[in-house]
């Protein structure tokens, strides 16, 4: 199995490990998912996300290339800015969801771990005719995320020469953290403020431990994939493979506003998307909460008055709201907030209703 640079640290510190898309990853530490989740909402959590892919683009055509291969109009991004985006196939299906960071003279893409080989091949295959250089940063960097309302204060203690609170939201900049040059991104996957840190590979474990030590007094905990999933799910951040895949378009997934600009650039999948936008949607991603107790899970069927109308993409007990909630695709006519649904859980059906997303909004967000 693939291992991150922090793998041995996890093993030595009581992590429970699972196979996550071929990576041997910590699903939780001794505190457990509930406590880890709560700490991120109240204080801070540190996540190993070194499994995620990262690619640097440079060269005279880097911007033109990006305009061609992804959905956001990156000409609107000044250096130092970050934005969410999608890679689409020709029919408008989602190849991956990514984060784009514009640095001085280069662009950084952070991509899903399981999709990284596919994405790199896909990007390379579309690079013909562009003077662009793609560099896989996996071997030279280590990637972690520090998230939560106390994240800035914790990291500031290790970066005395920088004003981290002044960075703002969805930015990228180089800073000295614990005497290492680190690319700090004010992005994340928890719905809390915080950082993603692209660190020199050789410094990964040292910085991980330095951050944990600096955060101990602020109740910082290392957090596993279980907490990462419940944190992202209750703020309704989509997960590739759940809320979208190559057969899902961003209209149905509700991602147009967050990730797509049809105007200003021509990109792979744009024509298909523009055509889809003229037609009524057949199915729409909705959020729902259970009106009868039960845990909805990925793949469970959704019914309306006994007839099948869709499937659950993500379901969970949401620690921050105390409710059983989920997301799923349903036929468009059953997508209005308040619509009563039935979720098939094992051999019975349990009541649910469509609710506004997200299920939870952090008071610390933005």
């Amino acid at each position: 199995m693939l291992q991150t640079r922090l793998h041995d640290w996890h093993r030595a510190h009581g992590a429970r490990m699972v196979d996550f898309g071929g990576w041997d990853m910590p699903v939780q530490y001794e505190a457990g998912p509930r406590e880890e989740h709560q700490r991120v909402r109240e204080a801070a959590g540190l996540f190993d996300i070194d499994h995620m892919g990262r690619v640097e683009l440079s060269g005279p055509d880097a911007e033109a290339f990006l305009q061609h291969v992804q959905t956001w109009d990156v000409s609107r991004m000044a250096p130092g800015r970050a934005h969410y985006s999608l890679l689409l196939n020709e029919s408008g299906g989602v190849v991956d969801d990514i984060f784009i960071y514009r640095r001085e003279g280069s662009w950084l893409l952070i991509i899903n771990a399981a999709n990284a080989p596919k994405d790199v091949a896909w990007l390379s295959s579309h690079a013909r005719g562009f003077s662009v250089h793609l560099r896989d940063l996996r071997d030279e960097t280590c990637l972690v995320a520090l998230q939560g309302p106390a994240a800035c204060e914790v990291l500031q203690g290790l970066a005395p020469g920088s004003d981290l609170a002044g960075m703002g939201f969805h930015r990228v900049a180089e800073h000295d953290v614990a005497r290492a040059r680190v690319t700090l991104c004010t992005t994340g996957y928890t719905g809390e403020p915080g950082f993603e840190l692209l660190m020199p590979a050789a410094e990964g474990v040292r910085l991980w431990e330095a951050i944990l030590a600096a955060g101990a007094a602020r109740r910082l905990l290392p957090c596993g994939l279980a907490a990462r999933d419940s944190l992202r799910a209750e703020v309704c951040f989509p997960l590739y493979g759940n809320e979208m895949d190559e057969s899902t378009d961003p209209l149905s997934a509700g991602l147009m506003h967050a990730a797509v600009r049809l105007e200003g650039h021509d990109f792979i999948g744009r024509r298909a998307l523009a055509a889809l936008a003229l037609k009524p949607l057949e199915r729409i991603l909705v959020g729902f909460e259970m009106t009868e107790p039960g845990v909805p899970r990925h793949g469970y069927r959704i019914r309306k008055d006994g007839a099948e109308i869709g499937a659950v993409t993500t379901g969970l007990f949401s620690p921050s709201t105390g409710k059983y909630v989920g997301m799923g695709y349903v036929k468009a006519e059953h997508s209005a907030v308040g619509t009563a649904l039935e979720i098939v859980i094992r051999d019975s059906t349990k009541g649910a209703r469509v609710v506004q997303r997200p299920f939870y909004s952090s008071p610390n967000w933005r």
Partner: protein
Amino acid sequence: MDSKVEPGVRYSKTHEWVRVEGAEAVVGISDYAQHKLSDIVFVDLPAAGRELKAGTACMVIESVKAAEEVFAPVSGTVSARNEALVKNPEIVNTDPFGKGWLVRVKLASPVEVDALMDAAAYTSYLATLGE
């Protein structure tokens, strides 16, 4: 990992426990089982009056990541269920041998209890699992 093993109760190989109280028995899952499950978010308790058959699945406990079946350690009729778990299923994590009990069962065949492990045997059994 050191799991707590409660004395005075009997254990199944699938990590349920039974405490006999007269003609009835209280059923729960062991500390080892709750720890393996991780944080419990839902317990799908069987209805009162339901017949349980020893060794067969009788309810589902859902943790953060998975739904796991609980096997009836003894046969009998459900006489009561721990309603506190409906609102607070995490009690199974915090007090598996006490407030986190699952159901009370009117025993159909009290001799079934003798076939279960006592605390010493269960402790040895856990050691063989290499945890």
